[in-house]
C-alpha cells in the first residue's frame, strides 16, 4: 500500500506571552491509502494542533518548529499559504468539531458549497450548482433543491455537519481529516455521521484521519489508532491489537475509564487519577509518568522510545524494556525500535 501521508518528528509550539506551549512534541506516523486512522486522547493532548499542523492552519502565535509533513512525498511545511490553499479543500480536507459555529451564518449553504467547487475546479456557476446538488444528495441531505437555498440557521446541527462534509468532499480529496466531527452532536446523529463517513470513504476513495476522545467511536470505524498524550504518541497499533492487548498504561487507563457496552460486559468505570501535564513546562520524562501507577525512576527522567511490540503495534513505555520489572500483560521486547 502506498503511503499517502508521512508525519515525521512534528513539533508545534505556541509562543504565547506567558511562555512556550509545546502542544505537539515530536510525533511521527504514516497513513496508508485507504486507512481510517483514529487519533485518540484526552482533551489537551495535542490532537487538534496535530491536524491543524498538517493543514498548515496553526494560528498565531503557534508555529511548526520542527519536522516534516509529507503528502504524497511532498513536504507541506515548505509551502507558503498560497500554494497550500491549492491543497486545502482540494486534496486534503478537514471538518471540525462544532458544526454550529463552523459554517458561515451569512451565506446560503449553496453559496458556500459552490464557492469551494468553483475555487478548485474552474466550473462555472451552473455546473457548480449541479455538482453541489449532487454532493448534498451524497451526504444525505433531503430535498437538496430546496435546502441548497437555505441559510445555515435553517439547518439542524447534524444537517450542518453534513453540509460541511459536502464542502470538504467537494473535490474528492485524497485525505479527509475529521476533528471530533461528532462530539457536539446527539448520540443518534453521531452514529449517522460516522456511518456517512464510512460510506463516503468507499464512494470517493479517500483516506481518513478521525480525531476523537472517544474510544467507542474509534472501535466503530477505524482500522488503525494512535493514542496521544501530552503532545506525544503513547501507542500506535491496528485496531485489533489495541483493543485486545493494549500495551501502554495510558491506553489501559483510557479503556477502563469508558463504558464497555461494546462487549456487553458490565464493569466499574475507573477514572485516571490526576490531570494532564502542563505543556508550558512539560515533564522531561514520559508525560504520563506523574499519573502512572507503574512509573519507574527512568520514566520521570526520559521518555521511552516506541518499542515495537509486533508488526502492528508500538508503544512508548519503559515496561517493554528487557530490564524492566515484570508487569502482568505487558510484553517485553528485545530492543528498541
Amino acid at each position: 500500500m502506498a503511503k499517502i501521508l508521512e508525519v515525521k518528528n512534528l513539533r508545534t509550539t505556541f509562543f504565547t506571552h506567558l511562555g512556550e506551549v509545546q502542544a505537539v512534541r515530536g510525533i511521527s506516523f504514516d497513513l496508508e491509502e485507504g486507512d481510517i486512522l483514529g487519533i485518540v486522547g484526552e482533551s489537551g493532548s495535542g490532537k487538534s494542533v496535530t491536524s491543524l499542523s498538517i493543514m498548515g492552519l496553526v494560528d498565531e502565535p503557534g508555529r511548526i518548529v520542527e519536522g516534516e509533513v509529507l503528502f504524497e512525498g511532498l513536504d507541506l511545511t515548505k509551502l507558503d499559504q498560497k500554494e497550500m490553499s491549492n491543497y486545502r479543500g482540494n486534496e486534503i480536507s478537514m471538518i471540525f468539531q462544532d458544526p454550529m459555529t463552523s459554517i458561515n451564518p451569512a451565506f446560503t449553504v449553496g453559496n458556500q458549497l459552490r464557492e469551494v467547487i468553483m475555487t478548485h475546479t474552474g466550473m462555472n456557476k451552473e455546473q457548480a450548482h449541479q455538482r453541489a446538488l449532487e454532493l448534498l444528495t451524497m451526504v444525505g441531505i433531503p430535498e437538496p433543491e430546496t435546502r441548497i437555498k437555505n441559510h445555515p440557521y435553517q439547518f439542524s446541527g447534524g444537517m450542518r455537519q453534513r453540509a460541511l462534509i459536502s464542502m470538504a468532499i467537494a473535490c474528492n480529496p485524497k485525505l479527509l481529516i475529521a476533528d471530533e466531527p461528532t462530539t457536539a452532536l446527539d448520540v443518534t446523529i453521531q452514529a449517522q455521521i460516522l456511518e456517512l463517513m464510512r460510506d463516503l470513504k468507499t464512494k470517493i476513495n479517500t483516506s481518513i484521519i478521525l480525531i476523537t476522545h472517544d474510544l467507542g467511536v474509534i472501535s466503530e470505524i477505524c482500522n488503525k489508532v494512535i493514542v496521544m498524550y501530552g503532545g506525544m504518541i503513547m501507542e500506535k497499533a491496528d485496531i485489533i491489537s489495541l483493543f485486545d492487548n493494549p500495551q501502554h498504561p495510558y491506553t489501559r487507563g483510557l479503556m477502563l475509564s469508558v463504558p464497555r457496552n461494546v462487549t456487553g460486559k458490565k464493569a466499574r468505570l475507573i477514572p485516571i487519577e490526576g490531570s494532564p501535564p502542563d505543556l508550558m513546562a512539560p515533564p522531561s520524562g514520559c508525560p504520563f509518568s506523574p499519573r502512572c501507577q507503574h512509573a519507574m525512576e527512568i520514566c520521570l527522567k526520559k521518555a521511552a522510545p516506541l518499542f515495537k511490540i509486533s508488526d502492528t503495534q508500538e508503544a512508548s513505555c519503559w515496561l517493554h524494556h528487557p530490564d524492566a520489572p515484570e508487569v502482568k500483560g505487558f510484553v517485553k521486547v528485545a530492543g528498541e525500535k
Partner: protein
Amino acid sequence: MFGYYLKRIFSAIVTLFIIATLTFFMMRAIPGGPFTREKALPDQIIAQLNAKYNLDDPVIVQYLNYMKGIATFNFGPSFRELGLTVNDLIRQGLPGSMKVGIVAVLMILVFGIPMGIISALKQNKPIDYTVMVLATIGVTVPSFVVATLYIYLISSRVSWIPITGLSNPIAFIGPAIALSGYSLSYVARLTRSSMLEVLRQDYIRTARANGLSETRVIGKHALKNALIPVVTYVGPMIAAILTGSFVVERIFAINGIGRYFVESVSNRDYTVIIGMTVFYAGLYIFMVLLVDIAYSFIDPRIKLGKRTGD
C-alpha cells in the same frame, strides 16, 4: 413583510407625535417666550405680537392648531426670522447641510471601514498603532478644534482653498473633515474590533480549510459578518450628519440647517424648534428603518419583523 412596514410606519408616526407633543409642552413650560428681549419690549407690543401669532390662545388650542399644521407638513411661521416659515428655513438650510453631510458620510465609509479592516489584519503592527492613535485623536478632539486648526494651518495659507462657504468642491474639504472626524474614527475602531472578533470565528477557519484565497476569506466571509455592528452605528449617524452641525456651519459660514436649529433654541422660536425636532426625528426614524432593511440583507437570521435564533 408588507404588514411589517405598515407596523413600522405606524409606530414611527406615533413616535413623532409623542416627540412633537413633548417638545411643544416643554418649550411652553420654560419661562419667557420668543419676544422676550434683554431690553424689555413694551407690554402692548408683546400683546400685539402674541395676538398676531395666536400665542394668546389657550395653550391647548395652540397645541391643536400646531399639530394640525404638522400633520400637513406645515410647521408654521418663524417668530424671529421675519416673513419666513419653518418650511422656508428647512428649504434654505437643508441643501447646504446635506451637501457637506453627504461628503462627510462618504468619507466615513470610504476611509473609516478600510482603515478598520487594515488595522485588524495588521493587529499590533505599526500600521495598526498608527490608525488607532489617529482614531483616538479623532474621537477625542472636538469638531471646532479640527475646524479651527484646518483653517489656521491650511486654508489661511493656501490661497486657492477657500476658508468659508461652499463656492467650489475644494471648499467642502474642511467642513467635511470637521464633520466626519469623530464618526470616521469611531467607525474605524468599530470595524477593527468587529473584524478581530469575526476573524477568531470557527467559520473563518473552515473557509481557509476549504482552500479559499485570503482575499475571499477576508473580503467575503469575514467582512459581511464584521459589518453588522457597523451598520447599526452608521444608520442613525447618517441622520445626525445630514442634519448639519451648528459648530461646523458657524465656523465655515455655511448656510445650513444646523445653525437654525441651535439658534432657534436660544431665540425661543417655538415653531422652529418643534419643526426642526420633528424633522430630525423623522429622518432618524427613517434611517433606523433603513438599517433594519440592510440587516435583513447582511444577516439572514434576521427576518424582518422577527428575530430567529438558533
